[in-house]
Each structure stands twice: as structure tokens, then as C-alpha cells.
């Protein structure tokens, strides 16, 4: 048990019902998150990263979502729990930080009440103790005047302040595990940096395991210990952050890095990845899912049923196409 990961996702498939048929948005994903580790999940919009995050907490509407596989938290498979049992984990053992702080708070409740709600659900504290703890939390997340904010309503706070409140709610019961679903996407760049610093600081203090969902490679570089790259519901590459930034292999990962604009190089045009993520209904179920976005790579480079290959220690890449991959302009260079 010593080396058991905090969270272990095994073959998780999350399918959504569209007109009586289920389509997997998260397809057979396996991941581990250890204590005190930040795992970033990167991918473009619609690749299933948020669906994955919500699946861990089981926050999807159960009427039109099907979860298969296992989500083991401290050895307990969360998917086999009843909603009431699951509620003992939500907020207490695992917290969630949402993408848009403008909508993540109830507009009719005071900030204090909203922070205390989680404590009320899980901890046996008196009202005075809860208030003291709420004020302490507000202070901890860098709110300048906790007493005042405690009595305020969400609309009276700025976006950055609200995101701090959302973080305060997530850590109110000192969970060992946090999911941050694009926590800085809705914020200004300067506020982004502050929020990331805050999260790093809290993570160091509390030794939490974090799954950080993002599409921003800058955020990954700053925060993550390990990175999983997702494309069309699957993990296409997973490695620790240094390896991945030094040696990205999968064509999708490389395309992502190549799409970062660089002022220094003075390149005239920004690289874009051709096409879009296929919609859930039109997703090819066989073959390399990225193949139609790199049409210049010959068919035979792809596996017919791509699996993850360990190319170096703890660095996994899906499909064999990475071996033959080159960017369109580089074709001549690579031949020589």
C-alpha cells in the first residue's frame, strides 16, 4: 500500500447520450495521480478533458451519462458508490475549482455562507468555529478584507477575487486531492499569474494531489509535475513535464508546441493545426484519431489500433506515427 497512488483511474470511459445512443467523450483513459503531485491534462477544446474532470467527481447528469471503468481514490472505487456515499468524498476528500468564477458562485448567497456550506456538510463545527475558519480561509487565499468579503455577495467581487473564493471553497475541508478545471481561463493575464502562484503556494503547504485541466502550455510549464496530452477523448502522450517539453513526440503534442506564437523567432505566420477536433458523433473509432489532421503523413505510419508505447521511462506515446512525423514545410529538410 505504500506506493499506492492517491488517485488511480483505470480504463475510464465517459459516454454521453445523444438521441438514444451513447458516444464516449472520454475513451478508455488510465491515469495515476500521486500525493503532492500536479498532473496537467492538456488538449484543445472538446477533447474530453473537462468531461474527464467531472467524471472523477461524478458531476455529470446521471440520466444521460454512462461511466465505465474505475476511479480509485485511496483504494475505493468511486464509481461503485451511491450518491449519498459519494457526497462524503465530494468537498471533503476532493475539491473542485471551476473554470468560470463568474458563474461558479450562487448569486443569492453571501460568500461566507457559500464557504461554510462545505464545512456544514462534512465537519462538525459550531457556527463561530466555521466563521473563524472561513475568515482564515479567505485570508489564506489572499483576500484583503476577509470580514467584509465574508458578508458580500458574489456580484460585489471582481473575477479574480471570486476565483479566490472558489479556491477557498475547494480547500475548506482540506482535501487531499483537487481538480482545477481551467482555473485561469476566464481571468486577465495578470490575475492568472496571481491565481497560479496562489495555487502553487497552497499546494506546497497542503501537499495535495492536483489534476490541472488546461489548454495553456504556459500554465503547464509553471505548475505541473507531469503532463498528459489528450486528443479526441484519448491520452496521446504522457510524461513528466521536463521530458515532454524537451522531447515532445506525438504529432499532436508537437503541433501544440509549434502553435505557440514566438516573437523572438520572427516567423511570419502562426502554425495552425489543420481541421478541428471531430465531433463526438463523427469520431472515428478505429485507427489513429489524429491521422486526418496530418494528412501528409502516409497511411502506413499509423497503427491500425493505436496503443500507448513506452518510448523512454515513464514517457508514453500513442500510435507509431510519431516516428515518421514532420511538419509540412520541413518535409525536404527531413528527407536529407
Amino acid at each position: 500500500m505504500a506506493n499506492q497512488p492517491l488517485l488511480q483511474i483505470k480504463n475510464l470511459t465517459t459516454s454521453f447520450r445523444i438521441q438514444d445512443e451513447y458516444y464516449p467523450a472520454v475513451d478508455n483513459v488510465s491515469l495515476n495521480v500521486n500525493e503532492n503531485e500536479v498532473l496537467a491534462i492538456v488538449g484543445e477544446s472538446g477533447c474530453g478533458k473537462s468531461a474527464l474532470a467531472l467524471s472523477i467527481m461524478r458531476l455529470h447528469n446521471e440520466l444521460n451519462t454512462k461511466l465505465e471503468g474505475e476511479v480509485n481514490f485511496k483504494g475505493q472505487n468511486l464509481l461503485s458508490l451511491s450518491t449519498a456515499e459519494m457526497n462524503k468524498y465530494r468537498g471533503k476528500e476532493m475539491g473542485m475549482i471551476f473554470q468560470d468564477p463568474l458563474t461558479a458562485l450562487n448569486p443569492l448567497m453571501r460568500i461566507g455562507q457559500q464557504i461554510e456550506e462545505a464545512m456544514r456538510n462534512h465537519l462538525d463545527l459550531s457556527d463561530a468555529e466555521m466563521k473563524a475558519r472561513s475568515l482564515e480561509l479567505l485570508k489564506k487565499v489572499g483576500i484583503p478584507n476577509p470580514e467584509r468579503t465574508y458578508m458580500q455577495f458574489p456580484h460585489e467581487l471582481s473575477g479574480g477575487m471570486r476565483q479566490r473564493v472558489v479556491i477557498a471553497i475547494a480547500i475548506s475541508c482540506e482535501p487531499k486531492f483537487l481538480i482545477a478545471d481551467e482555473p485561469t481561463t476566464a481571468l486577465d493575464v495578470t490575475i492568472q499569474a496571481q491565481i497560479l502562484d496562489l495555487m502553487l503556494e497552497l499546494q506546497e503547504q497542503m501537499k495535495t494531489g492536483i489534476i490541472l485541466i488546461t489548454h495553456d502550455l504556459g500554465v503547464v510549464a509553471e505548475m505541473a509535475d507531469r503532463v498528459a496530452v489528450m486528443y479526441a477523448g484519448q491520452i496521446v502522450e504522457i510524461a513528466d513535464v521536463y521530458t515532454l517539453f524537451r522531447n515532445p513526440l506525438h504529432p499532436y503534442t508537437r503541433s501544440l508546441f509549434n502553435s505557440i506564437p514566438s516573437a523572438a523567432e520572427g516567423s511570419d505566420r502562426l502554425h495552425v493545426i489543420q481541421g478541428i477536433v471531430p465531433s463526438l458523433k463523427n469520431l472515428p473509432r478505429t485507427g489513429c484519431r489524429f491521422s486526418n489532421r496530418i494528412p501528409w503523413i502516409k497511411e502506413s505510419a499509423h497503427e491500425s489500433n493505436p496503443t500507448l508505447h513506452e518510448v523512454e521511462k515513464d514517457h508514453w506515446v500513442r500510435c507509431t506515427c510519431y516516428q515518421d512525423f514532420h511538419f509540412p514545410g520541413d518535409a525536404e529538410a527531413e528527407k536529407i
Partner: protein
Amino acid sequence: MFKFILRRSLIAIPQLFLLSILIFLLAQAMPGDALSGRFINNPNLDPAYQSELRDKLGLNDPLPQQYARWIGNLVQGELGMSYVHNVKVETMLESRIANTFWLGLATLILTYLIAIPLGVIAGRWPDTYTDKFIVTYSYVSFSIPIFVFALIMLYIFGFTLGWFPTGGSVDVRVEPGSWDWYLSKLHHLLLPALSSALLATTSTIQYLRNEIIDTKLKDFVKTARAKGTPERKVYSRHIFRNSLLPVAAFLGYDIVFILGGSIFIEQIFSYPGLGQLFVDSITQRDFAVVNVLVMLYGFLSILGTLLSDIILSIVDPRIRID
């Protein structure tokens, strides 16, 4: 809050002023005048005497002059004389205002007693058979004219089953002020109020249902669930409270709707309220009464919307009025 009410009241003054001009002109546009109603059944009256009377009462004066006189009196609280009944208008209103008030209040309470639970059930479990039944009811009730429905209710529960009295506001045999008297009043109220309420529920049910369905998908509901809040509390604390906002906002309009409905309801149930007086006064060309009543309805509508705004500002912290 005080400042807000004051400001809104000040805005209401020009609204009422415009309304008064409109009412006055419309009343003038109707065939006949204040006296023709009185003389309508009296062919023996000398036409020369009629025109003399008209002159005396100022009915032949130019319109602006007539209007100025009417509005001047109104502002001073002088509501005028009913030429038909030869009594002051306020005397005619006195007994009826209370009746209409109680009928309206009963209707409003019954409307919400029916609509809120139905809206909540339909929104909580949408697309179930229960929900489809409720939605069907709300569409059907929206499309039935109130005078048809009220007649059916009167026929079934009043005449055939005899559960409720078919007219009046109170049993004349009981002593006013006694316990029985109040019970009798309530007994007379119930059927007209229920008939009106059953049709007034549509907007509340629909708003509540759709708002709950929308609110369920809001991020803050996910936040609440992510805190481990039990499902029952997620609904009561987060979803229902937020969904009731538009219902509160529509309180004023519901009041207006019920007032409008009361005109038919009171007529059909021979309930001696303002609505019945209104219809009677129109048929008798009793313009003094009609004008005052329309002004009163206009005033109550403005009051209703003001009430909505005040309630909304109390329940929704994002709306500040000061």
C-alpha cells in the same frame, strides 16, 4: 428604499396623467353621454329639457374644459356623481372595494398554491408523465377563455352539485361581523377565486418549470454538488431559490391579470365587486363611475409593478434600489 418608492411614485404621476386623458377621450368617443344612460328608458322626457339639463351639467362645454373640470375634481378627491344612481361615486365604490380586494387576494393565494408546487414538480422531473400532464394543463388553462370556464365551474359546483353559492358576496341571513358571517364570505369567495386561479397559473408554472430546468445546469449548482451537498439541499437551497426570482418579478403582472379577470368573474358569479360595477356602469353609460374605475385599475397596475420591483430587490441582492 424610501427614495426608490418616492421616485417610482413620481414617475407614476405622468403615467396616470396620460391614462386620464386617454380614458376621458375614450369615454367621450363612446356613443351617448352621461345622461343618455339615465334617459334611455324614458321616451317621455322632453328633448328640450334634456338639452337644458346637459347645459346645466356642462356636458355641452368644449372637451378641454370638461376634462379640466373632471381632473381637477379628481385630484381634490372629488370622484364625482353617478348620474344613473344619483349618488356619489365614492359611496358606490366603498362597499365593493373590500369585496374585490378579498376576492383578488384569495385568487392570488390560490394561484400560487396551485402553480408553485406544480411548477416545481414539473421542473424537478421534466419529461416525465407528471410533467407532461402539468404542461398540458397549463396550456389548456391558458387557452380557455375565463368567461367560458367560469360558467362551467358555476354550473358544475354551483348549480349541479350545490357545493357553493351561485351569487352574492355573503349570505344576507347571517349577522354582519359574526363568525358565521366571515365563513359565509369565504364560502362565497372560494368558487370565483378558484375559477380565476385555475386559469391564472400558466405563467407561474411555465416560468418556474423552465427556470428550474435552466438553473439545474448552472455552474454554481455543480459547485454545490462538488461540496458534497445532499441532492435535497441542492434543490431547496440553490435551485428553487434562484428559480423563484422571475415568479417574484411577475407578481405585479399577476395582480394585473387577476384584476382583469375579476371583471368577468364578478359578472358571472354576480359578485358585488368593482368588476361587476365596471360592466354595469359601461352598459348604463355611467361615465363618472367608469372613468374613476379605469383610473383605479391603472393605479393598481402601476402599484403592482412597483410591488414587483420592491419584492425583487428584497430577494435578489444583485438588484439594489436606493
